[in-house]
């Protein structure tokens, strides 16, 4: 059953991606027009799509900062400790 579902989705990958993009757009749309922002903690959150931007930027920052950090000499060959 699980396998059938995965195969079903994989065969329609393009459609799955389109649906995901629509979901992202709807989410930001909901945030911009319908959501009551009375529970926001800071003023910046009143900007529409604030948390979407925060999530995306966080993701990019984490990937690039970590890769940069790794290149400072932190990542080594797997047999480093055996030499």
């Amino acid at each position, binding site marked *: 059953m*699980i396998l059938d579902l995965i195969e079903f989705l994989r065969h329609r990958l393009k459609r799955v991606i389109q649906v995901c993009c629509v979901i992202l757009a709807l989410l930001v749309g*909901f945030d911009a027009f319908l959501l009551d922002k009375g529970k926001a903690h800071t003023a910046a959150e009143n900007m529409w799509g604030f948390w979407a931007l*925060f*999530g*995306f930027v*966080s*993701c990019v920052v*984490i990937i690039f900062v970590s890769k940069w*950090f790794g290149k400072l000499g932190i990542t080594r060959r797997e047999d480093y400790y055996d030499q």
Partner: protein
Amino acid sequence: MINNLWLHPGLILLAGALLLPLVKGRLFRPYLLLVPLLAFGAVLQMPQGMFGVFPFLEWDLTFGRVDRLSLVFAYIMTLMCIIGTLYGMHVDNPFETAAAWIYVAGSLGVIFAGDFLVLFLFWEVMAFSSVFLVWFRGRPESVWAGFRYLLVHAAGGMVLLAGIVLLYHATGDLGFHQLDVTRPTLPIYLILAGFILNAAVPPLHAWLPDAYGEATVSGAVFMCAFTTKTAVYALARGFAGMEILIPLGVVMALYGVVYAVLENDARRLLAYHIISQVGYMVAGVGIGTELAINGACAHAFAHILYKGLLFMGVGSVLYMTGKSRFTDLGGLYSKMPRAFVFTLIGGLSISAFPLFSGFVSKSMIVAAGFDDHLYWAAFLLTLASAGTFLHTGLKVPYFIWFGKNNCTKDTWEKAEDPPVHMQLAMGIAAFLCIFIGVYTPYLYDMLPYAVAYAPYTAYHVTESLQILLFTALGFFIFLKKLTPEPVISLDLDWFYRMGGRVFKLGSQKGMDYLSTRAQQYLGEALPRRLNTFSQSAPARLSLLLIRPLWYLTGVTVKGQEGVEKRFTETFNRSLFSIGSMAVFTIIMLMVLLFFIS
């Protein structure tokens, strides 16, 4: 430990572990389930109060302080013991399960300890029993990782003991209560250091990925649940509101995320995410409000289940294929679909997806941060949660079950869903992860303080979904950047793994350098100079004194015919005329007279 008909659940596990090697045949597997079930039952019917108090020398040792804080930890730990034991039913070595039970008994001993002496006793039981869960993997790397684990924890234990002894010396009280965190003294800092070593706070954290990555398949499931969470309990009991824990917790949350990007081994990646997740709890304890302490406890509860589930899912891949590195795996969804679904549920729970357990627990801590106007902490913790989804929710499932298929023919043939008992254990944990996320009173009613927090508001759900789904967007855009590479990343364990080598190399090179220089200066240059000095010094000194006299008498001093040349030659040949000796002696006497008078 039976006092007023109170039975310590740790005692049940301890007795069960001692009898375990004697149980053989058809009784073995039912017995494996019976013992942790009895321990769980003992916690379920436990009344609150002080039990198991024994006079020892001049102290009253308390083995059973039962209140809401200790009960919620004891509940989840004995429950996890059932799940972990069920998961490890395939293990034929009774000593491995016995070590795991003694380890859980140690944790429960700490949880119910009413004073520092009992706490320290069980603290050490934990370290010395859990190390066997690493050693029983049997690889040479595991043996060394085990020794490193033991050394670090033994050192941490000594620091804790030093703190306890000094605290007793200063206050005369051994009771384990909230300490004075507003004016911390040396003993309090030492106890804190002992606790945060077990909570894996950087820079005292490197033992965790080192040991957990090398533990046995079921051993890692136990280890990921108990040591750090016992430390969180101890911090919540003694250090609530200690402000330094807030930055430390935030650093932990981010540190684990950064290393998870670089990690190629799935179990080490999960281990780094333990550091990250425990960071939330440590920060929660540091904030110290009722909401924050509730959040720390709730997150520890949820964490034990979803992290156990993740270690079970990835462990089942290791168990079936013998591989845990992303560069040896990939594309396994058609071979191990159930393990995939269970791991995904664990991944969604740790990422705090709505309707999963992390959503209702992690958000309490972040909300407590916002409520306390600690915006930097709250925003950084939210940033770390994007990283959690990026790795545990996306990277782990994607690169094991999808992505590029790196499996060898042998790995591919061995891969299939794990035995039924493992699936059952994962199923129970997965069910609880969702149940906690859907039906919040189950967890909230167990927490130390009354809960007025509601996680399912439109704002909070939209906020979380935006963060998570746009993180996923970033993941798929930068998928190539995240492709695993066959590398390891150096961490602070480098200092004690390579420290010996550096010392040896340093002493070799250092000694070589020292001996060459000693030869150069002490053996050659210094004697040469001394020689020159002793040869020419008397002449020069005398010249210094006699030259003014020559100038006064008007003789030629410099040049080929000058007196200076003759004088020096006389000195070099050591041929002194009586006249010059007399003049020299008189001059020296006058100088002496001048200085004496």
